[in-house]
């Protein structure tokens, strides 16, 4: 039905049925990571470093091992040697080797017959450290006298003579920068800083791992990607991938942070040492904050040239980011996304990936893009104010369109930035009058979206209902959107489709639910799988009717003669075909695997109104508007939910969230009391507008909507605070204290 292009009339796509997993989740029946238990199961606990940087001189586990009920203790000595590259990084992060590299770094782990015993045993492990100087801030880490975190960690991209904590370096761009700046009426350059934030998913990491002496194992785990868990655990422990079977649990949030491993290999290593008894490990919130993967922090210089009419003439970005004690800060993504909304003929990007004594960063919703946007969109806004230009008009004037070359290289296909900005201009929020101490901020945001390795199967049950097996855990309503698409495609009720998120033994490799890919990639593969089943059902009908299979078409949930010449037969429904498939050739199913082509990027723009208490500097969000191109909203409620969730995480990042370190290099706020995620009463209802510029690369036009929404809030709120107070904050978070200080500096 989609082969001739994009349909615009749908029976189910675009409707808002209840999600298939909804009842389970509101009744507590859904099984999350910590809900899983097995007979004979042990409980694990992890000893973590209290130091930001220290040599491990000695680990004495004898007292822990002697404790009654303790069945296994592991240290790095229980892991294979000789790993390289990212495998070594993962292993080193799982369990410290010669040095601990951050506060919270795992040093040893224990499995015992109860959680309390395991925790008691952990306290009995004695570790002798030689504390080393540490470095936390990215700009400090590249100073000449900074403590060196790991000699030789730099890759070939780093030019000779750079500080040793610079482990990746990049520069790219095009055009004549000098001429571009010379052609501008206004050239401005500023430095912006963002602090590390955590995804803050509600569900802490949890797993049950079981591994026998035969190197065959199983794992039940809360993850965004069971194949990634399998691959990484096997790399770290020296196992064969197909011998480990990984089953994902229901997932209470991930936002990118559950696309990698943390304590999962420890449960397997402990189980192996405890004669194959399963070992459960559940992280506390403090462990989650100290020892999983927050995002990077950034220090960013941006320079932009603008004409009096708002036309951009040239732009340059130099970003420095630390992503913890290992390579992998998303500085490249930040650079790609920063100028992406703008048509630029002269642009230069320089990036530094820097080590610091912090936990290894993981993906967090559009990794890098919010930082890039904070720097670029803030400066654009500052320049608009200086030139007296409307920030929406300036964005429209410079907006990229289909066929334009992006700031980072590739040409854009079909994109919807102009449509998004038009929708912003027409929205009633922009007409709301602002009172004293109030301000309005506007910013754009961008995310590429992603395809990724995808393998999907579907099959028809004997009663004509349909099951779909996908490898992408449902983190944002994808079971609903996949059910809608498959039901639409087959012409059957939504309720007749069940989408199962399956374990690693059931399908070929799937990348995690990341890159906003599940509805796009698993959706496209599900539709292509369904096409195979439809073809087979048409063949069965043709056989029965004694006509050519080509003369049968699928419509309204049934095989039908394709036209008057095909013969006159009543439609044969899916239920009828399924009911007798045992006699007509056996099971009917479909399967598709690929790197689905045709990814569609998503642009968004946000408008925020704030009021700042002039005496305390407290920022209140009065109104918040998200406008974003979804391509096609399969289930609009869950698209809106993604828009709102992205905005709220961005609001938290902008106003209060940050990793706060003491002089000793220890994390000061590993608890939600002091790591301040917004609470419901901090927020207005987030208004949303779904723009639909269909993606021609997907049968229903899907782009992927999960990530773009976290990008604009950081600069939009900074600009709104600027208008409300006259003070521009260039260092996140914009806490009341910092806003008040900026206002006082303004006054004096």
């Amino acid at each position, binding site marked *: 039905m989609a082969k001739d292009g994009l349909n615009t009339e749908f029976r189910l796509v675009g409707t808002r049925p209840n999600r298939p997993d909804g009842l389970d989740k509101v009744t507590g029946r859904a099984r999350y990571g910590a809900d899983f238990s097995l007979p004979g199961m042990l409980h694990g606990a992890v000893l973590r470093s209290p130091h930001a940087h220290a040599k491990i001189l000695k680990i004495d586990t004898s007292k822990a091992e002697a404790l009654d009920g303790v069945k296994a203790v592991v240290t790095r000595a229980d892991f294979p040697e000789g790993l390289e590259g990212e495998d070594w990084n993962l292993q080193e992060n799982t369990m410290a080797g010669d040095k601990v590299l951050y506060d919270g770094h795992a040093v040893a782990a224990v499995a015992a017959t109860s959680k309390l015993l395991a*925790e008691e045993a952990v306290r009995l492990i004695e570790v002798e450290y030689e504390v080393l100087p540490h470095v936390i801030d990215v700009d400090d880490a590249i100073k000449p006298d900074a403590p060196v975190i790991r000699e030789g960690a730099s890759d070939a991209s780093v030019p000779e003579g750079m500080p040793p904590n610079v482990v990746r370096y990049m520069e790219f761009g095009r055009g004549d920068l000098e001429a571009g700046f010379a052609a501008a009426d206004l050239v401005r350059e500023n430095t912006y800083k963002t602090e590390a934030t955590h995804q803050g998913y509600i569900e802490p990491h949890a797993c049950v791992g079981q591994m026998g002496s035969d190197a065959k194992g199983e794992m039940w785990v809360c993850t965004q990607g069971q194949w990634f868990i399998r691959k990484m655990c096997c790399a770290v422990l020296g196992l064969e991938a197909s011998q480990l079977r990984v089953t994902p649990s229901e997932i209470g949030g991930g936002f990118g942070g559950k696309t990698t491993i943390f304590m999962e290999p420890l449960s397997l290593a402990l189980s192996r040492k405890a004669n194959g008894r399963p070992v459960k490990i559940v992280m*506390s919130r*403090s462990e989650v904050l100290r020892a999983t993967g927050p995002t990077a922090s950034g220090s960013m210089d941006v320079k932009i040239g603008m004409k009096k009419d708002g036309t951009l003439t040239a732009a340059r970005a130099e970003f420095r980011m630390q992503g913890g004690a290992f390579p992998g800060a998303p500085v490249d993504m930040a650079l790609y996304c920063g100028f992406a909304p703008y048509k630029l003929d002269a642009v230069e990007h320089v990036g530094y990936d820097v080590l610091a004594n912090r936990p290894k960063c993981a993906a967090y919703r559009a990794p890098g893009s919010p930082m890039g946007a904070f720097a670029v969109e803030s400066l654009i806004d500052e320049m608009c104010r200086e030139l007296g230009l409307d920030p929406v008009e300036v964005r429209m004037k410079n907006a990229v369109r289909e066929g334009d070359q992006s700031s980072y290289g590739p040409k854009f296909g079909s994109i919807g930035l102009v449509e998004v900005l038009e929708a912003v201009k027409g929205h009633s929020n922009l007409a709301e009058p602002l009172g004293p101490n109030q301000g309005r901020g506007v910013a754009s945001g961008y995310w590429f979206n992603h395809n990724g390795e995808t393998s999907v199967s579907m099959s028809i049950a004997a009663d004509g209902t349909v099951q779909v097996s996908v490898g992408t855990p449902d983190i944002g309503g994808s079971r609903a959107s996949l059910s809608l698409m498959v039901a639409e495609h087959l012409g059957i009720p939504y309720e007749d489709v069940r989408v199962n998120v399956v374990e690693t033994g059931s399908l070929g490799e799937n990348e995690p639910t990341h890159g906003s890919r599940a509805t796009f990639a698993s959706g496209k593969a599900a539709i292509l799988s369904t096409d195979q089943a439809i073809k087979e059902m048409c063949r069965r009908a043709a056989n029965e009717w004694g006509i050519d299979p080509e003369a049968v078409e699928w419509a309204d949930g049934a095989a039908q003669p394709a036209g008057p010449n095909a013969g006159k037969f009543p439609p044969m429904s899916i239920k009828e075909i399924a009911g007798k498939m045992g006699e007509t050739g056996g099971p009917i199913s479909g399967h598709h695997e690929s790197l689905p082509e045709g990814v569609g990027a998503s642009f968004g723009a946000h408008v925020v109104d704030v009021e700042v208490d002039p*005496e*305390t500097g*407290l920022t209140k969000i009065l109104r918040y508007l998200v406008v974003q191109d979804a391509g096609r909203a399969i289930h609009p409620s869950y698209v809106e939910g993604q828009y709102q969730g992205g905005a709220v995480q961005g609001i938290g990042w902008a*106003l*209060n969230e940050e990793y*706060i370190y003491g002089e000793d290099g220890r994390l*000061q*706020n590993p608890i*939600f*009391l*002091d790591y*301040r995620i*917004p*609470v419901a*009463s*901090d927020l207005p209802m987030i208004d949303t507008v779904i723009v639909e510029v269909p993606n021609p690369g997907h049968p229903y036009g899907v782009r992927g909507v999960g990530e773009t929404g976290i990008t604009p809030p950081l600069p939009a709120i900074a600009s709104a605070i600027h208008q409300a107070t006259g003070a521009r904050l260039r260092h996140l978070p914009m*806490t*009341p*204290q910092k806003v*008040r*200080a900026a206002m006082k500096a303004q006054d004096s």
Partner: protein
Amino acid sequence: MNYHLATSFEEAARIAANAGGTTRFLAGGTDVLVQMRAGMVLPDDLIDLKAIPGTDAMTQLADGSWQIGVAVPGARLGANADLCRDWPGVVEGMELVGSTQVQGRATLTGNLCNGSPAADSVPGLVAAGATVVITGPEGSRELPVEEVPTGPGKTALNKGELISEIRLPARGDNAGDAYLRFTPRTEMDIAVVGCAVSLRLDGDKIVEARVSLGAVAPTVLLVAEAADAIIGTTLDDAALDALAAAASKAAKPISDKRGSAEYRIEIAGVLAKRAAKIAYGRAKGDNK
């Protein structure tokens, strides 16, 4: 760990006096159970007070004063219309502790004995002139609330002593109190600064006042100079400025992850003004 279910305060005091290692009393448990789960405190003896008769009672005596049992949860304070009418500042302080769920268990006494300088229910009690009854091996004594905390996590309670009751004085006429705290978030947060004001009017003029500050010193402060700045005034702008200056001057905060000393000093003055205005309005009959 030994768990004890005490049936009288005397018994609880005796158990505590004879205990060797770390002892904790359990009423609401919203501090101690969380601390145990987090491994911060691993008591050798945990003494449960909830079975002691009267710990869940909240009584207004004939003279108008109040007795509040040590296990009365915050939710019941807010549900008592008479207490809300008499001491709205005390109630709103307690109601800021934790979430709705926590309010079902958390108690005034527990919040006080936790010894946090940022405890939200304590400034209101101090401004109100509340006292506590302490039971110990040597008998009972009464202490003003402001004398209970002696430093972060520390109290004036001796070994074997525990609080057996909180007493609020009779409110009387033409009076009002209020508590405000400053937090970056609207809920589920901990005070950067807290301030309670209690005052009485004669006509438009303030004739009695008590001002208390939280989170700006090792203990919650009773600031006489701040009260003096508004006594005898109609809370005009000059009085408010004097109040703010006195509150800021009394604040001796540290700089930490929750706020710098400089910021806390400034906010202490801002909150004092705002809390005084609310208390004044309530004394005039505002229902807020």
